[in-house]
């Protein structure tokens, strides 16, 4: 069970600055269980954003958003609504956000911080997608996680060892920063990476914080 909590609304609104039309996605799995992105929270978020002058082009709550095949199938019925959106706000853990980012060619904003994987790592079989760092950075990285997928957890771009799309550590590991640059290039948002990203707050992460599960 991935344990997540919603980011502060001010932070979410800062992500959505400049975007008028938003598509909302939640998850009936862990996010519903933890009250961070189920049916109820998606409906509430819809109201909040409308009050702030946003147009919600559509919303969807998937049974298990981290199930790639299921989410792909569900998204097919929302082609028009997705096309009309400037970006997508996803209310669930890091694994779910990255599922949507992989499936949809739009900017994807994370609406939650993942506090703990609770011993499980979502339905993504081939690789770890979330290290439960408690301070989700997917907003700045095209929906691909450099904490879970960069050997050095870099936040400001690739190191000097990225070559031919591969990580210097192992030729079988794709360089996630190459993937991030490729994706942001495709979205016309490479300038997002020019911002200096400050040192991360590791005190909220499971690996550096106190050795207890944190519940929202």
């Amino acid at each position, binding site marked *: 069970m991935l344990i997540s909590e919603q980011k502060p609304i001010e932070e979410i609104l800062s992500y959505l600055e400049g975007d008028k039309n938003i598509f909302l996605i939640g998850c009936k799995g862990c996010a519903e269980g933890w009250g961070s992105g189920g049916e109820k929270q998606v409906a509430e978020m819809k109201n909040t954003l409308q009050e702030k002058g946003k147009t919600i082009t559509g919303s969807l709550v998937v049974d298990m958003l981290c199930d790639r095949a299921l989410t792909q199938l569900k998204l097919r019925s929302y082609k028009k609504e997705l096309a009309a959106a400037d970006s997508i706000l996803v209310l669930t853990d890091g694994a779910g956000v990255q599922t949507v980012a992989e499936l949809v060619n739009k900017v994807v904003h994370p609406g939650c911080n993942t506090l703990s994987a609770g011993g499980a790592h979502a339905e993504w079989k081939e690789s770890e997608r979330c290290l439960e760092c408690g301070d989700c950075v997917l907003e700045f990285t095209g929906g691909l996680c450099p904490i879970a997928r960069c050997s050095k957890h870099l936040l*400001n771009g*690739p190191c000097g060892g*990225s070559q031919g799309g591969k990580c210097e550590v192992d030729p079988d590991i794709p360089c996630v920063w190459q993937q991030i640059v490729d994706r942001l290039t495709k979205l016309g948002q490479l300038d997002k990476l020019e911002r200096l990203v400050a040192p991360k707050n590791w005190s909220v992460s499971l690996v550096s914080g106190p050795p207890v599960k944190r519940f929202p």
Partner: protein
Amino acid sequence: MKTKSNLERVLESKIFAVTGELGPPQSADPEVIRRKARILKGHVDAFNVTDGQTGVVRMASWAACLIGKEEGLDPIVQMTCRDRNRIALQMDILGIAALGINNILCLTGDHQKFGNHPAAKGVYDLDSIQLVKMVKDMRDEKKFQCGEEMAIEPRLFIGAAENPFADPFEFRVPRLAKKVAAGADFIQTQIIYNVDKFAEWMKMVRDRGLHEKVKILAGVAPIKSVGAAKYMKTRVPGMDVPDSVITRLQGVPKEQVSKEGIKLCVDIIKQVREIEGVAGIHLTAIEWEEVVPEIVEAAGLLPRPKLVT
């Protein structure tokens, strides 16, 4: 002048700068450092000491820097984020400044997997860009990373590395721009064998005007053997060794290869010196320091300005 660094003084006076590299020993022997420092003396404006390069345990960079300073050189301490969190980094930064070291090169660090302790826990609390910013804030704002203030700040000339041959190529210059925005005063590049690609990268650097904001030192290194060239081409991450380099070394009799490697290095120095925006070279001859005087002389870079720190 922001600092008492000899390197800064040379660069500010628009003299084509030369920095060298000194590999510290895998032991507590200070004599190795003294011997190498005496070779470099009078031939470089400052020298780097690597910080656990390739993840292998060697004498601490700051300690070897201090020994080299006693020999009358201007040291550049290398500091990686691999082995220290922000607390340790800042303590070391205060310490090196207190010891009279004037230069720091901020690096993320080679992954511990490559070294002789691959089971070590990597730290990577900060990345190299965040480290540059932290040193800059300590020096210019007298502030620790947490925001608290300090009485006496570390006056350090801040360097960073950049690899024009790594991927994604189109992001290498924006990444350099981030290092400049974070506060880098000088850049030492990856070792250059592919001069054409380096020239292409420098053009992108000039297009953004970055060469006017940061001093760029082109990385160069002599190659000792055909085997070494092939090893660098295929096995060292982030290196770009064109076939023409290997062909050139193969084209001479075996006993002449190291001489040809030195000539090739001198040729590359002359070529990069012609490129607008290149402020100097960083010469790396690890475990072959004795050829540094010969290369610097053949490249027409002697005498060096009198050292002042």
